[in-house]
C-alpha cells in the first residue's frame, strides 16, 4: 500500500498549473515520469534531498494512469485531493455548472458507509 504516494502525486500535480495540463493530456506518460523523477523528492528539504524507496502499487499506478477517480476513491486516496485536481482537469468539459461534480458523485454511488479508509 502506498496511499501516501498516491496522495503525494495528486498534491504535487494539483499545485502546478503546467503539470495539471500535462496530466490531463498524457496521464500514463505523466505518471511514469513523475514516479521516476519526482516520487522520491522530499518536499520540505531545500537541498533537494530525496528518499530512496517510494513506488506505486500496480493498482495505484493503473488508476492514476487512466484517470480512474472511482478507483482512486476505492483505494483510499484522499478524496479532497482527487476532487480538486479532477475538477481542474475536467470541469471545463461540461456545459452545466457542477455538471462534472455531479457526474463524479454518480460514478461513486455504489459506495456506502464506511467509505475506504484514507489514513496514511
Amino acid at each position, binding site marked *: 500500500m502506498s496511499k501516501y504516494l498516491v496522495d503525494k502525486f495528486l498534491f504535487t500535480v494539483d499545485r502546478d498549473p503546467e503539470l495539471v495540463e500535462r496530466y490531463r493530456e498524457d496521464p500514463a506518460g505523466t505518471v511514469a515520469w513523475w514516479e521516476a523523477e519526482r516520487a522520491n523528492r522530499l*518536499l520540505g528539504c531545500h537541498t533537494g534531498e530525496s528518499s530512496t524507496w517510494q513506488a506505486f502499487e500496480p493498482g495505484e499506478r493503473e488508476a492514476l494512469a487512466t484517470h480512474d477517480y472511482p478507483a482512486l476513491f476505492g483505494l483510499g486516496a484522499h478524496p*479532497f485531493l482527487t476532487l480538486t485536481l479532477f475538477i481542474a482537469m475536467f470541469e471545463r468539459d461540461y456545459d452545466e455548472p457542477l455538471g462534472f461534480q455531479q457526474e463524479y458523485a454518480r460514478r461513486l454511488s455504489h459506495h456506502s458507509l464506511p467509505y475506504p479508509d484514507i489514513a*496514511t
Partner: protein
Amino acid sequence: MAELAAVIASTHHPFFYRASTSTGRDRPPFADEWVRKVEAFRETLTRARPDVLVMVGSDHFHQLWLDNMPQFLVGKAPYYDANFYNEQREFGLPRMLLHGHEDLSAYLLREGMDAGFDLAMSNELRVDHSITCPIITLRPGNDLPIVPVYTNIFAPPLPQPKRFVQLGRTLRELVESWPGNQRVAVIGTGHLSLELGGPRQFGPHGPDPEFDARAVEWIASGDIDGCLSEVTLDSLHAPGNATHGFMDFMLMMGVAGAGAKADYVDTLDLFHTMEAYFTWYPNGAAGP
C-alpha cells in the same frame, strides 16, 4: 487585561466571493439573500469594535503536508500572504495579504504550551480560504492584525473532539489573561455536514440536514456536553466524509463556554452545504 470582545463561529464557503461579486446572468439566484445574511452577520463583528483577530481555521493541503503534519499550529509572523493558486483557479479567490500580530502570537504559543498544548509554530505561513473567507465576509477591509490558529481536521489521525473543545477553552483563558487593554475577537470557521469527493457531494442540500439541525442547536445553546456525547471521530463520517471540519465549531463552543447561548444565530440552506453563523458577546454586546 485584554477583553474578549466577540466570539464568532461560521462556515467558510469558498464560493461566496464569486457569488457575491458576480453580476447579470452569472449571478446565482441565491446570491442576494446570501449577501444580505452575510452583511447582517458582519455587523455583529463591527459592533464589537475589535483591535485584533484570532482566526481559527484549517489548511486544506496547501502549505501543510503529510510529511510533517501538525495537529494544532499557531502562526507567528508580521504578515500572512493568503490564498493559493488552486483556490484562485477553482473559486476565483483573490490573492491577499494579512497583517500579523506577533506579540499575541508569541503569548499564545508560550502560554499555550505551558497550559498543556504542544503547539506547532510557523514563521512563514500562507493562509488559505478557511481564514480568508471570514475576512471577506466579516471584515472585507482587512484592516486588523490577526493570529492564525490551524487545526488538523483533514489528515488522519486527528485529535479527538474533546481536544478541540479544550483548546477553545484554553484560547479564551489566554486571550483574557493577555496583558494590555486590546479588544480581541476570536473567529473560527468549519463545516456542518459536508461531503467532498464522495457519492453524496454537491446535492441540493447538505448531505445530512438532520445532523445540521442538531449541530446548530448544540452551538446556539452552548450544549458542549450534548455535543461531545454524540460526536466522535467515527461518528463524523456518517453525516459526510468532510464533516470532521465540524470540530472547528466545537473548538469555538469551547471559546464561548459551556451553556453560553449565542447572541446571534443565522443559517442559510444552500446546495451542497448549509451555511451557519453564530456570534457571542462574552461581556455583553457593544453599544451601537
